[in-house]
């Protein structure tokens, strides 16, 4: 479904001398993997790992410095925005900050309808009502503005918008990290339900390995722009091969672990 081939992306920083070259920052370096249809593919990485860059590249919102992204055999990378219509209707993204990803000046109905308007898909009003119901929001939500909702509800609105054009692939970029624990479980349940119900292929990006473990079947571990480990999520979690993955698994405090006597000193390498 999605193939990343030797993906690299570097950014130029503003030059530090008036005439010298601009220093480069490598955000992603030769990352390759494949996401097959129906897979729940997790990407785990800490800050600076390049996971946000990866999301942008996969969604065709940015172009790689080298390498390629293919969606269902078609090249995504390096294309002009207007040639990506095939991607826009079939792949949708949910972002991290549910407040920041909703235009404060638009009504919920218009927000959800935006992909439909952009892609000239008819039957907007019915579809908006359908997806609102699917994400568990009342029909009356359509006429309200984002600031009138709580964090969890806003993330539902984001999910509704992503579902509106009936995509096959959903990319979720840290969808629950801005949410309270008591709300996080709801949104994770909803996400799982939706993926099942609409047979979506899911790419789930997170800094939290335990969330990825709950949601995904496969996981890729990124560190400093490089893919250090890739495999079945249970395999990676229980028998990490790369030292960094081992460190990552070890560093996550867990309730069970703590009650079993694991101290802070045990979390560090």
């Amino acid at each position, binding site marked *: 479904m999605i193939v990343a081939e030797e993906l690299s992306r570097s950014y130029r920083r503003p030059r530090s001398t008036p005439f010298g070259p601009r220093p480069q920052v490598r955000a992603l370096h030769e990352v390759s993997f494949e996401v097959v249809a129906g897979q729940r593919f997790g990407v785990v990485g800490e800050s600076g790992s390049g996971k946000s860059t990866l999301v*942008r590249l996969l*969604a*065709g*919102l940015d172009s790689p410095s080298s390498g390629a992204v293919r969606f269902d055999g078609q090249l995504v990378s390096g294309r002009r*925005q*207007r040639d*990506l*219509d095939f991607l*826009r*209707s079939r*792949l*949708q*993204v949910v*972002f*991290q*900050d549910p407040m*920041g*990803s*909703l*235009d*404060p*000046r*638009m009504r919920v109905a218009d927000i959800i309808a*935006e*992909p439909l308007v*952009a*892609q000239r898909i008819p039957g907007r009003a019915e579809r908006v009502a359908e997806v609102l119901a699917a994400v568990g929001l009342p029909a009356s939500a359509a006429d309200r503005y984002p600031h009138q909702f709580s964090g969890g509800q806003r993330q539902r609105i*984001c999910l509704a*918008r992503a579902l509106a*054009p009936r995509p096959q692939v959903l990319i979720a970029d840290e969808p629950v990290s801005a949410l309270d624990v008591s709300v996080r479980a709801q949104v994770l349940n909803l996400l799982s339900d939706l993926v099942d119900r609409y047979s979506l292929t899911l790419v789930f990006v997170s800094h939290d390995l335990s969330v990825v473990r709950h949601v995904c079947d496969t996981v890729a571990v990124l560190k400093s722009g490089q893919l250090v480990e890739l495999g079945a999520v249970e395999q990676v979690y229980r028998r990490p091969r790369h030292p960094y993955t081992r460190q990552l698994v070890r560093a996550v405090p867990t309730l069970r672990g703590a009650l079993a006597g694991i101290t802070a000193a045990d979390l560090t390498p």
Partner: protein
Amino acid sequence: MRSLVLGGALVGLIVLAALLSFLWTPYDPTLVDAALRLRGVDWAHWLGTDRFGRDVASQLMVGARTTLYVGLVAVGVAALVGTPLGLLAASGPRWLGELVARVNDLVLAFPALLLAIMLGAGFGASTGTAMIAIGVATVPSFARVARAAAMQVLTTEYVLAARSAGRRPLAISVRHVLPNVAGLLIVQSSVSFGIAVLAEAALSFLGLGTQPPTPSWGRMLQESQELLAVQPRLVVVPGVAIALAVLGFSLLGDGLRDRLDPRLKGVGDAGR
């Protein structure tokens, strides 16, 4: 809230006086009558007459018209030129943003007064040269505010979401950027209007703006400057009018800022 009401009331009062002056003024503001020179305040002349015997209240009303006219055209020109420039600088390629910033720096080095002097030296000073000078000098404020605000909007996740929904850049500018920077531009308009009123008064005071016989607050002040000791009213009346107008627009700007977009508070502060 208080700023909004007070500012709105002051601005409303001036607009009302200006509009009314089209239909009616107590006297012809340009009518010179030696017999009526320097009359004090009475029922016939609410604010007295000046040294040419012209009715001060009538001049003040028509002067409001000049003030608003100059402000409107100047701010209009500045907004219409500056806003698209700023938006373009924010959404276009880097070099374009850099170019706009440099042109801004250049225009900033030519304050309204210098432009008015240069234009006046060539074409002869008039309301027109004053308007153009003030307008051009105000362009950078709008370009800056529009650019800063648009850059902020363009980095938001909702713009990213719109792109991934398949929106084209133009649609994003119209549907997302413009509505979200509009509030700030309205605030900037009000603030710039106040500055334009001040600039117009200064230019007229120097004889570089509106020419006689058209009444203008700045010139009313200049003409009666030396009469301050004898007839302080003649200086105080236009002086207070100018100060209240400027105050009105700046209060209105503050009030609108709080009302329209508390989240963007501070973004436009450096524009002045």
